């Protein structure tokens, strides 16, 4: 009798777990399929290399690709040193104290703030108050603030996961705290830190609300950090929202998906190589 109930429970659990996994894959495939089916026919080499014509009804999306890259790079360049530095401070330079709890509380709050609020803050602070205008810099800094909590917490987790013996060994060999961080902590935490950066890259590329408010929606090719730009996500949003061209919107969406896929693949390949070299 007991055997039978156990057998049935086992069976139900198996079905449910398979169902969960399959529906996840199902949703993913459905979205990808829809966007790619509509968008792939638009993707020709010209689409990637031309500037948009007549508000994006025709032509390509080159300036938005450049804009997306520029914005993401600026965001990562600002957020990574700040975030990793904070994580190192929390893990290696201080013990649990009022300050560390305050920092963690702050980052947790920051992580829960909707992106449009970051956009508003960026608009008021960077665009208007610091007079940086709608620009790559304003948008990049806003995104940096937005992804900072992710980078801090993933870096902190990565550092926490390092065996304590590594630290002891480094110190017992006469290492200073800074040398221990540079030669042992950071190299060991690098894969985890990179995962956080990758997540942040994904979020930056996909962000729309915060970017419209801080980087603008210019279709011109940017010439400096102070140029306004339109990212691919914003382009997609405007094309679809304002009914300019659904066809081109899907094209942009497909290009965006391929881009994210490419970034992730290359990054994973590099990471795996790094991990294999150390193991």
């Amino acid at each position, binding site marked *: 009798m007991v055997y039978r109930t156990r057998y049935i429970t086992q069976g139900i659990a198996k079905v449910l777990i398979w169902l969960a996994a399959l529906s996840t894959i199902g949703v993913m495939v459905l979205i990808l399929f829809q966007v790619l089916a509509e968008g792939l026919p638009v993707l020709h080499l010209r689409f990637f290399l031309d500037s948009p014509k007549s508000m994006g009804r025709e032509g390509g999306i080159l300036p938005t690709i450049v804009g997306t890259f520029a914005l993401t790079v600026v965001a990562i360049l600002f957020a990574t040193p700040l975030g990793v530095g904070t994580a190192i401070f929390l893990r290696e330079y201080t*013990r649990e104290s009022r300050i560390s709890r305050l920092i963690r509380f702050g980052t947790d709050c920051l992580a829960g703030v909707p992106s449009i609020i970051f956009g508003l803050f960026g608009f008021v602070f960077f665009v208007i108050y610091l007079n940086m205008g709608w620009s790559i810099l304003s948008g990049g800094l806003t995104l940096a603030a937005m992804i900072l909590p992710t980078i801090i917490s993933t870096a902190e987790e990565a550092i926490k996961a390092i065996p304590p*013996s*590594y*630290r*002891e*060994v*480094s*110190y*017992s*060999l*006469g*290492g*200073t705290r800074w*040398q221990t961080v540079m*030669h*042992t902590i950071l*190299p*060991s935490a690098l894969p985890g830190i990179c995962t956080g950066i990758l997540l942040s890259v994904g979020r930056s590329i996909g962000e729309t609300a915060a970017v419209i408010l801080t980087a603008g929606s210019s279709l011109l090719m940017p010439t400096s950090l102070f140029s306004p730009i339109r990212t691919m996500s914003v382009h997609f949003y405007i094309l679809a929202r304002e009914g300019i061209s659904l066809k081109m919107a899907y094209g942009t969406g497909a290009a965006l998906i391929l881009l994210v896929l490419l970034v992730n693949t290359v990054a994973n390949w590099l990471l795996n190589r790094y991990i294999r*070299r*150390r*193991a």
Partner: protein
Amino acid sequence: MPPETKIVIKDFNFYYQSVQALRNISLTIHPREIFAIFGPAGSGKTTLLKSLNRLTDLMFGTRHTGTIFLDGANIHGPQTSLTQLRRQIGMVFDLPTPLPLSVFDNVAYGPKLSGATQKGRLAEIVEKALRSAVLWEEVKDRLHTSALRLSGGQQQRLCIARILALEPEVILLDNPCSGLDPISTASIEATLAELKKSYTIILVPHTVQQASRVADRAGFFLNGEVVEEGPVYQIFTRPKDKRTEDYVTGKFG
């Protein structure tokens, strides 16, 4: 003439928060001897070793009273450089602790931190250290593969080589054979006998038998106190204290 001294520990007490781990320890270690610290788990052996190179400084909420002298200088004195002290007193831990680096980079880690960057010089240091730890012949063809791929015994000798590369004066070994098979243990013990010629060694042995095999003198620790110390032949054959006798004869522990 009194015998030379390398380390003198005087009335040393150590506390983790409110727990006292060491009580009134007074010990003298002579140059180029192997001194064994043995006793049941929790008797303060590791705490004493970590106090000697001040790795205990890394832990929060600890304090100590009493003094420790290395070559006559107080290791807690203001003139003592912490990094210098740790280079002089190298430590090998109970489980092998290779860093996730190549064999070469593990041994070169310490010298690099102290400023040795010249490739040729580093290669010399690494080879010499690996030879002294009796590991060179086994790893000379795979210096640039990951140290994590070595066997347990090899990893532990690598850890010994890693501190030898800093040319220390004292080597602390915290039960270095705890995770090793008898053959690896024998190779570590042979290495120790070789190292004794040039270094002062403080060893927490894996077993009482190991202490009697390799050590010159020994101290029996119980509940943070030194119950008895003396030459091994005396401690293991004619212990003065009843508790020591019970421990070495296997009545408890």
